[in-house]
């Protein structure tokens, strides 16, 4: 068992348990940060090791780290940490406003840790069955957090989230069973047939029909969690009604993780089938998601809901990129995963404080943030500008690559995508601009907002748009090669 | 391309034009008087008016700006230069190279611009009214004039007035139907530009009708004299343009000194006829409402464009 992985998983587990006991104490937030930091350190060590030694199998092949998931691990750990930093003052303010009880805080903190544990498990495990279990666990942990405020809306959102994702994940299990069924023919019964590395090795011998049916189930299953249209319906509700830190990690991390699982299966399926079946499906769903989500945007009143739809849109874009395949598109997809999760979480941080200041999430009632609190205003403005794909932010870099590849490979799709992006721009910017600028109605907060994460994220995104360090680029390239 | 005798000749022509221009105005008024069965004031009347005005003192409005005082000199200078540019007697003059047809139009436009600005400077209702109407006339008349000149320059393949005249006057005689249209357009334009009936009436100060006079209402003394002089220069320039374009015969070619001697009386004769015709038109036609003026000028403009098209169609 590699110590890094052990630490990586042990730290959130311990954190979860510890905070389940003392999560309501005053310093719980700091403890939360500490554990997240520890996790991040572990992930950094893991990155270093994988960077040095290449792909890594651990604990009797139960864990497999290659360049594809290692950067997702790092990203997840990092965003989880920054979100913890952000949530410290945020949740205090929520408590002061009497929206959460101490018990609620305890639940929140412990579940936060367990959630990151689940995600890290999904990312690091080599066993597709364990991957499913962990994914389900991620759902279960977040369901309670979405319902944290115990209001009508939050309960409704949580209920929908649970039912839809539960049903979806059930389909994913069926898909996993089918994969196992196909693999068993070659690898024989037992855990071995569920290990991705083994499957990857024999993927061209797997039975095509079974694999295609399996992939359908997996797509519907994990696709629900990715938020692909028309399986997305839980997503805006859950984002809008949950506590903002949770919206941030849902948008920034969980969607990525689900997509990661889908990609793993896509690799095997494409290997098994000679025709580009999985790719075609991914492209189709990606395109649909982009277009539909775009049209939803302009009707939104609730700011978090709007950005949830924007997440659907971006996930669709990424899915489309992976569907196209090829070194450039996959590279772009991975890059877009990174910048999207950084930017979107940053936006949610800013939005969270903005909503606390204005005392509402209704955009029409949030005005002139830049006057009362420039950092929140600028955070929101720059984040929005970045997520809308304005240079020199990194989102533009990945979108540029995706779109140019689309123009080269599928010219029919490029105008659709660009048009959707244009409409999304009109919708989002038109709503955010008056929130940031103009006369204000916001109030002061009881705790100083922690906005370092916002600007840290945006700085990274900006840097990625202008300059990508060679090792990072190689890393993405290798990952892209794995995806094919 | 600038020689001493050339310069001398140029300034001689310039001086001649500037000095003789008022006489043309006098001649036109004389003809009008005759046509209206009046005994006119005589050819020299404009000169008397000018000397009178020059020796009078200037009365300036309280808020007249330096621009107001400087404008008359500028306008006069522009029109003097214009009168020097247009080929009247010979084509071999240095300034011909300095400014071509387009520049000529630009020069006239510059004069108009300053007239209008000066009209607005004092800030009475009349000044601005006049300026507005002047610019209204201008923005339709100027392109029309340009188009007329373009027709000619398309024929001669050049915008240099000298070349145009040489081509029209000294190549073998051809009938240009386009020039007929251009001629009509030009007549209409020059009527409008020189504040003549039917567009404007130089002889009235009735605020409903006047254009040019309304603008210069505030001028007095030497300033007014310069303005008046510039006006008669303008008439002279337009007549010369018309003659150069449509009746270029008798204008001397490069280095043809005999022709030069001959050209002067020919010019006088042509001007006399032209002035009489102008007076005739003015007597026969009635002043039109100011709102009709755009239609009148638009017609001229369209005729000019038509002339160009005709050239491309038939002669191109």
């Amino acid at each position, binding site marked *: 068992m590699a110590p890094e992985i052990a630490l990586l998983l042990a730290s959130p587990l311990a954190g979860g348990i510890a905070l389940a006991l003392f999560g309501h104490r005053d310093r719980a937030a700091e403890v939360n940060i500490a554990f997240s930091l520890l996790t991040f350190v572990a992930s950094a060590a893991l990155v270093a090791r994988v960077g040095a030694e290449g792909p890594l199998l651990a604990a009797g092949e139960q864990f497999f780290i290659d360049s594809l998931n290692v950067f997702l691990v790092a990203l997840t750990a990092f965003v989880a940490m920054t979100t913890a930093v952000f949530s410290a003052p945020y949740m205090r303010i929520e408590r002061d406003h009497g929206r959460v009880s101490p018990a609620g805080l305890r639940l929140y903190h412990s579940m936060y840790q367990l959630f990151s544990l689940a995600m890290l498990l999904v990312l690091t495990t080599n*066993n597709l*069955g*364990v991957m*499913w*279990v962990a994914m*389900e*666990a991620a759902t*279960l942990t977040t*369901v*309670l957090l979405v*319902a944290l405020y*115990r*209001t*009508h*809306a939050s*309960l*409704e*959102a*949580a*209920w*929908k989230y*649970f*039912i839809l994702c*539960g*049903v979806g994940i*059930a389909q994913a*299990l*069926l898909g996993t*069973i*089918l994969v*196992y*069924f196909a693999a*068993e*023919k070659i690898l024989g*019964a*037992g*855990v071995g047939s*569920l290990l991705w590395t083994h499957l990857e090795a024999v993927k061209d011998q797997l*039975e095509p*029909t*079974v694999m295609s*049916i399996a992939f359908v189930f997996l797509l519907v299953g994990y696709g629900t969690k990715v938020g692909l249209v028309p399986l997305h319906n839980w997503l*805006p*509700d859950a984002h*809008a*009604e949950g506590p903002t830190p949770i919206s941030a990690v849902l948008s920034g991390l969980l969607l990525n993780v689900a997509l990661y699982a889908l990609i793993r299966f896509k690799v095997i399926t494409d290997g098994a089938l000679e025709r580009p079946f999985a790719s075609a499906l991914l492209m189709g769903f990606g395109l649909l998601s982009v277009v539909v989500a775009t049209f*939803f945007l302009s*009707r939104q*009143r609730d700011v978090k809901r709007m950005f949830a739809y924007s997440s659907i849109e971006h996930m669709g874009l990424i899915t489309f990129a992976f569907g196209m395949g090829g070194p450039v598109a996959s590279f772009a997809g991975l890059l877009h995963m990174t910048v999207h999760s950084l930017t979107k979480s940053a936006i949610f941080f800013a939005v969270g404080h903005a909503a606390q200041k204005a005392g509402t999430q209704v955009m029409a009632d949030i005005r002139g943030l830049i006057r009362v609190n420039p950092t929140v205003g600028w955070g929101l403005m720059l984040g929005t500008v970045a997520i809308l794909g304005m240079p020199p932010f990194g989102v533009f870099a990945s979108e540029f690559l995706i779109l140019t590849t689309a123009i080269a490979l599928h010219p029919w799709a490029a105008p659709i995508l660009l048009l959707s992006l244009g409409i999304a721009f009109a919708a989002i910017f038109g709503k955010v601009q008056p929130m940031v600028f103009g006369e204000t109605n916001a109030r002061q907060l009881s705790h100083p907002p922690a906005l370092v994460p916002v600007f840290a994220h945006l700085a990274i995104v900006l840097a990625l748009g202008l300059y990508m360090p060679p090792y990072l680029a190689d890393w993405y390239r290798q990952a892209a090669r794995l995806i094919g | 391309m600038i020689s001493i005798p050339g310069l001398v000749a140029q300034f001689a022509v310039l001086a001649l034009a500037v000095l003789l221009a008022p006489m043309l105005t006098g001649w036109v008024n004389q003809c009008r008087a005759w046509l209206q069965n009046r005994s006119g004031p005589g050819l020299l009347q404009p000169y008397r008016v000018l000397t009178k005005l020059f020796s009078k003192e200037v009365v300036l409005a309280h808020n007249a700006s330096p621009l107001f005082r400087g404008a008359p000199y500028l306008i006069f200078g522009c029109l003097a230069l214009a009168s020097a540019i247009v080929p009247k007697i010979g084509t071999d003059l240095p300034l011909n190279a300095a400014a071509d047809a387009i520049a000529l139009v630009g020069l006239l436009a510059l004069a108009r611009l300053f007239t209008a600005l000066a009209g607005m400077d004092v800030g009475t209702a009349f000044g601005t009214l006049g300026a507005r109407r002047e610019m209204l006339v201008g923005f339709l008349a100027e392109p029309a004039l340009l188009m007329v000149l373009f027709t000619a320059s398309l024929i001669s393949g050049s915008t240099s007035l000298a070349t145009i005249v040489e081509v029209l006057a000294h190549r073998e005689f051809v009938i240009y139907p386009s020039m007929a249209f251009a001629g009509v357009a030009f007549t209409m334009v020059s009527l409008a530009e020189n504040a003549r009936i039917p567009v404007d009436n130089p002889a009235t100060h009735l605020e409903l009708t006047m254009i040019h006079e309304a603008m210069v209402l505030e001028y007095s003394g030497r300033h007014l004299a310069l303005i008046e002089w510039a006006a008669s220069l303008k008439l002279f320039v337009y007549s010369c343009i018309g003659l150069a374009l449509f009746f270029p015969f008798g204008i001397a070619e490069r280095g043809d000194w005999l022709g030069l001697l001959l050209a002067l009386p020919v010019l006088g004769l042509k001007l006399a006829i032209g002035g009489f015709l102008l007076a005739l038109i003015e007597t026969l036609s009635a002043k039109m409402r100011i709102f009709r003026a755009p239609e009148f000028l638009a017609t001229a403009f369209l005729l000019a464009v038509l002339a160009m098209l005709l050239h491309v169609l038939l002669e191109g």
Partner: protein
Amino acid sequence: MLQHYGPQLVNLFAAVLLLLSFSMLAQRRIISLINLYAAQGFVLFLSTALVAWLTGQTHLYGSAGLTLALKVIALPWILHRLIRRLNVKWDVETLINIPTTMLVGIVLVILAFNLALPISQLAGTVTRSTFGIALASVLLSFLMMITRSKAVPQVIGFLAMENGLFFAATGAVYGMPMVIEFGVALDVLVGALILGIFVFEIRERFDSVDTRHLEKLKER
């Protein structure tokens, strides 16, 4: 001789399972729904045990025991307590009327069988033909979740779907590896508990467990 009748028995169980799913689809009363669910679990337990015995896959005994513990005893008990606490014994009115639902269900069964055909041919197991039925029952419970408007029946449908999955696992392949079995079972258990909590919460807030009250969040 059981070796000889065994496969037929398994098929019989499969048929019973399908029958139960259909009757759940048709059933209006919540209590009987729960009982049907328990019955389904029991059939599942029997078939798993049988398959285990037939094939000598020892770990299948484990999962059979798990099934018995969880799906026949634990969850039905939880659900019974739940509805007693909520006292929602009254009939469940469906969104689509029963006959239509049944018709749709039959179509689904046909689809599932057609789909399962190639897979069954591949399956080298004694239980080859059961996969189609498993798939069918999954789809049927999905349909049930759609047609029921109350929270508890939806929960039951969700659990029934999981039954179908489990049957697929035992039917097509001799069960997943034990780790996974446990994981899945754990997830189902936790899920059921959370659902229970939710149903209470919803009951408190909306003083009804009708999910048609949960339609506030939507696009206007």
